[in-house]
């Protein structure tokens, strides 16, 4: 069902764990739907110095969290904001169609964490862009 990259990020997830004193935290998802993703950020000079996650969810949710935190490490907040679900799924070499929402969750988690940081900095939160457009583009393995 999952390709090797996904399985690698599921079996050996990068950046797992709660962060002590994070600069921004985003929690998205819903236990009713079977997935909750919590992204922790440490920000230095407008850059993501460290990013970790805690995830309750399926293989794709855990792999997406792992990949998403990898992708945003070292990026400026603007760059990190631009990491779309498509980018996450792409970096994972594709997700099954019914699992693309996990990569969407990762994008949302990053956004939530960045805006949490901005809020703490008393900055205006950034606005979400239309989601549908991303989802249409996202490629994926056959089921």
């Amino acid at each position, binding site marked *: 069902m999952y390709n090797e990259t996904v399985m690698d990020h599921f079996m050996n997830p990068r950046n797992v764990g709660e962060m002590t004193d994070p600069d921004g935290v985003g929690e998205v998802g819903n*236990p*009713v739907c079977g997935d909750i993703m919590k992204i922790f950020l440490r920000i230095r000079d407008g850059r993501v110095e460290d990013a970790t996650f805690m995830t309750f969810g*399926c293989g794709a*949710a855990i792999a997406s969290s792992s990949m998403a935190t990898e992708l945003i490490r070292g990026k400026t907040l603007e760059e990190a904001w631009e990491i779309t679900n498509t980018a996450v799924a792409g970096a994972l070499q594709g997700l099954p169609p019914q699992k693309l929402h996990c990569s969407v969750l990762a994008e949302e988690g990053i956004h939530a964490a960045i805006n949490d940081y901005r809020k703490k900095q008393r900055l205006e939160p950034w606005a979400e862009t239309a989601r549908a457009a991303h989802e249409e583009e996202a490629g994926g393995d056959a089921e």
Partner: protein
Amino acid sequence: MKKLVYMDHAATTPVKSEVLDAMLPYFSEQFGNPSSLYALARVSKEAVENARAQVASAIGASPDEIFFTAGGSESDNWAIKGTAFANRKKGDHIITSAIEHHAVLHTCAYLETQGFSVTYLPVDRYGLVSPKDVEEAITDRTILVTVMAANNEIGTVQPIREIGRITRERGVPFHTDAVQAIGAVQIDVTEDAIDMLSLSGHKFYGPKGIGALYVRKGIRLGNLVHGGGQERRRRAGTENIPGIVGLGKAIEMATADIPGHTAKIAAMRDRLCAGILDAVPDTLLNGHPTLRLPNNINVSFRYIEGESILLMLDAHGICASTGSACSSASLEPSHVLLAVGLPHETAHGSLRLTLGDLNADGDVDYVLDVLPKVVERLRSMSPLYAARKGGV
């Protein structure tokens, strides 16, 4: 070779070697079409009738009440739609339970689009249907009661004999999906007052793609597959001789000594189940403590999700399931677990282990070694678990 521990016998089972041996002559040698006149065809015809007798004898029916189908799903569809459309003038009401297999539930949902009304009886927290609820749900427009003999996810065994007694008294046909029950529970269609019964070969070490529907003499039932005159004009299609022969042999073997066979499986199951509940905190056993299939374990591990458990178990060579096999690819938590009252997030963390002939004691030890670590590992990543620990 990598270790393989198969604990998904409720999803499907391998064909037993004796069963395959019985099937083999019918592929390329005794391949005649039983509808034909010549001697070659008579061999096929006798093989079919022999298998029909084997199926009948396994459930206390008479051979002319057994009709071969392509599996449990077709049998369920046939029994339910065939009864509904043939009795439309008599009534339009069907009674079933909330925890039936999708082959029953989706068929009922389809019939709702065709003007029938369906009562989905609730179950208690163990998954039991109450015979009293059945009785109270019957109206003078009720044309069918369909309640499964045993549940495929949580293993709960239903009081079908009581339900049979009630439906027989009220003159309403009673169908039971016994796909999971065959070989595990003693069934006698006469004593249990069953009018129709579905079964499927691959659940008891027979082949896939073959099943049967028992239809008690005198029950009104329309056809699902129209065409040639096979199965006494009730189910068209050239007979799947090897499949039918395999089904007959498999059901004979599966029902030869149900108490002896299930005792062995249940002993392993009990040790595994106790071991899991012992080793893993925050774990619930789903289903009934005693009225359950002898091979079934269904547990919910709080704070984690089932698919990720399966993937990690698979990495250790352990084959298991979360809810029914069909729902594994879906995003919905199991309708059965919701019906017994589990909150969504707990339902998502369910694991079904179903033991069988492929298992030995060593498998129990192995799963008891691997599974707690897998749960621990996933919990260590779970924000729900962290929050719960924080909260204590």
